[in-house]
């Protein structure tokens, strides 16, 4: 049986640089960055006090759903597609949402025993009054995909992938797999990150992986960590080409099986995922690589080595850039944003730059896109996403033939 092709029928994004993908692209192409001091809460004393946050006035409780709704609506409207609800699937990369601070603190305090340690019995007595204030249907990782499924009437498969920084890319992989296997004909897929909040700033800060200088500059000699960003990126994939110009041609995944935060020193896991995606796509000539490019010293260097290993000599004919210089690290949404960068390169011949990159590290010597976007005909693009814990997910998008 021939494998069904998967076409990108529509894209949408809600980012700190724009309420739509074209608005965002216009800013990105000019080299803009969304990284600014955090104003949503007092970040005094935190290891990093900047983020690429969305300042629009959504309720503070959980911003994943409004971000995703806006991006999904744009993707759906640009797709102009009709589908039997039973043949529509929803696949989303997302981590847990947030309840209000006061509620979380009350819940945690409910279990405080006399010695200061956690007391289960006391928690059982005191917790319900706080638990009643938490809408679990909102903060669950699955809440966003479920809400989208209801909104679009989808009765096909609905999945939430929680694979940290590879979640968005892996959700797109799942969607492509489902279409290839005939489990659905159309998939609304992508990822969302809404982590510019005290808990994640604290968590990542404790790990020492945020930029102390507050600068995101992937592949730069002075890079020293990443900056949290937020937004949603969504795609509509379909088994029917319609007027699509881009095909999702290759998917590949691997695990480093090495370390909780550090990549394999030789980039073997990342390279295996890239090679798997390239093989799945039939080894097209890659004109652009949207790197995971977090701006951490180790990851960028190892990713470049892995890209060289996967592409071989062809890397000299490709351009490489990372979204994280301009938009920060969207965590569960990062891989989906990367897919949109790759789509833009193939669809419009516009290769977006790595904001913040001014002085490339000699250890990251690939053809970078510095300053502004470049125009280039790209037949195929590779988008990388690598997660804490070592999960790697790669996509190949190419011109629909």
């Amino acid at each position: 049986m021939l494998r069904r092709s998967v076409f990108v029928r529509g894209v949408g994004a809600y980012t700190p640089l724009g309420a739509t993908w074209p608005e965002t692209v216009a800013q990105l192409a000019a080299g803009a960055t969304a990284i600014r001091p955090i104003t949503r809460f007092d970040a005094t004393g935190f290891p990093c006090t900047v983020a690429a946050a969305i300042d629009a006035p959504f309720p503070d409780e959980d911003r994943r759903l409004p971000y995703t709704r806006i991006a999904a609506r744009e993707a759906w409207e640009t797709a102009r597609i009709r589908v039997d609800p039973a043949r529509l699937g929803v696949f989303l990369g997302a981590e847990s949402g947030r309840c209000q601070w006061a509620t979380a603190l009350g819940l945690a305090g409910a279990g405080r025993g006399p010695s200061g340690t956690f007391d289960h019995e006391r928690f059982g007595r005191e917790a319900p009054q706080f638990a009643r204030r938490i809408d679990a249907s909102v903060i669950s990782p699955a809440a966003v995909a479920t809400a989208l499924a209801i909104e679009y009437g989808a009765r096909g498969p609905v999945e939430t992938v929680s694979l940290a920084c590879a979640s968005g890319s892996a959700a797109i992989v799942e969607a492509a797999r489902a279409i290839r296997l005939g489990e659905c004909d159309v998939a609304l897929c992508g990822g969302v990150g809404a982590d510019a909040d005290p808990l994640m700033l604290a968590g990542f800060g404790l790990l020492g992986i945020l930029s102390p200088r507050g600068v995101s500059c992937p592949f730069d000699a002075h890079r020293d960590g990443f900056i949290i960003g937020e937004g949603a990126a969504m795609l509509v994939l379909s088994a029917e080409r319609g007027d699509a110009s881009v095909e999702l041609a290759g998917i590949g995944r691997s695990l480093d099986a090495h370390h909780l935060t550090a990549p394999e020193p030789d980039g073997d896991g990342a390279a295996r995922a890239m090679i798997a995606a390239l093989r799945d796509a039939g080894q097209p000539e890659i004109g652009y690589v949207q790197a995971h490019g977090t701006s951490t010293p180790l990851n960028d260097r190892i990713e470049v080595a892995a890209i060289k290993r996967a592409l071989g000599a062809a890397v000299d004919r490709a351009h490489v850039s990372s979204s994280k210089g301009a938009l920060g690290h969207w965590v569960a949404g990062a891989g989906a944003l990367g897919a949109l960068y790759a789509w833009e390169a193939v669809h419009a011949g516009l290769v977006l730059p790595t904001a913040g990159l001014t002085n490339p590290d000699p250890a990251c010597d690939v053809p970078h896109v510095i300053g502004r976007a470049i125009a280039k005909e790209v037949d195929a693009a590779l988008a990388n996403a690598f997660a804490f814990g070592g999960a790697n997910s790669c996509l190949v998008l190419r011109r629909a033939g």
Partner: protein
Amino acid sequence: MTRAVAIAHAAAVSAFGVGATGLGHALAEGAVLRGIPPEAPLANSRARKMMSRAAYLAARCLGDLVRELGWADGREQIGYFLGVGASGGSLDELMALLDESLVDGAFSLERFGTRGLAACNPLLAFQLMNNFTLCHGAILEGLGGPNSAVFSRGAGTVAALAEAVHAVRSGDCERAIAGGADAPTHPATIAELAREGLVARGLVAADAAALLALVPCPLPDHAATLVEGCAIASGRARSVIEAVDEAVDRTGIDRLAQVEVVVIAPWGPPASDALRSWVAARFPAATVVSTAALGESLAASAALAVIAGMDLIADPERSGHGGPRRALVLTLGVDGDPGAVVLSRGAA
């Protein structure tokens, strides 16, 4: 390339104890369960400090599985697909962080930034991220193949299993491990389940992990347990009957008349009643076995049910020569989405 996919082995840590063999028969016979065993040290004891309870259970189960299979080589090619729940960190750690963040009894974000963080174990983040339920075990055992961590309240684990089956069937990997792990007895999860009214409606939380090892099946093999099909369906805005019908239909198996055993994994009494009604209507002659006695393990329940189904059809000595050869596994988790898995013994 498409190949038949067999379950080579299974491992579990659940209210049945440690192990998978005999799980289905124990449930069918109403045997007294041993209960969830105490934690045993991992080979890498330092790793436990960074793990949530669910990650520990998954890692322990995974270690048992690969050791019992003797899968020592080529682990970098083994796929790993897991249904995972919301990971829960140590509340003692969280409280230490909060204690240092109080000013005059009130929480201060500034104090949180300046002193709270310093009081907290920097490894707390590794307990909190959902994907680490998968990644800890993968790192310890060196699994490097295709993978996914699907958030699951039931159906997500069947989706993870479906992915693993596809990965083996299509040749993406020669061996894959799939299942689920969850720790719903974590106080935050219990509070959430209570808030949703599920505890009052009969849900009894139980920690568990359950994993299946999948391989291509050399044909013919009359003893192999095959995964013939697995699928999920949406339970939104329609009856359980319709939703289960669709899930079973999506498995693509056209010989369901031969189903002799149905294993159901319902999250509580209402779901159990619904699934039993479905079975009574569609397979009135089938034997029904429920995983309810194991308690509700959320992301692990569906995998436990598959192991039970495997046990009931894959043990010719206990089931007799003419014993059941095909089992249908139905899951209905707290998300309301059903999953269906069709198992059979023997490949012609």
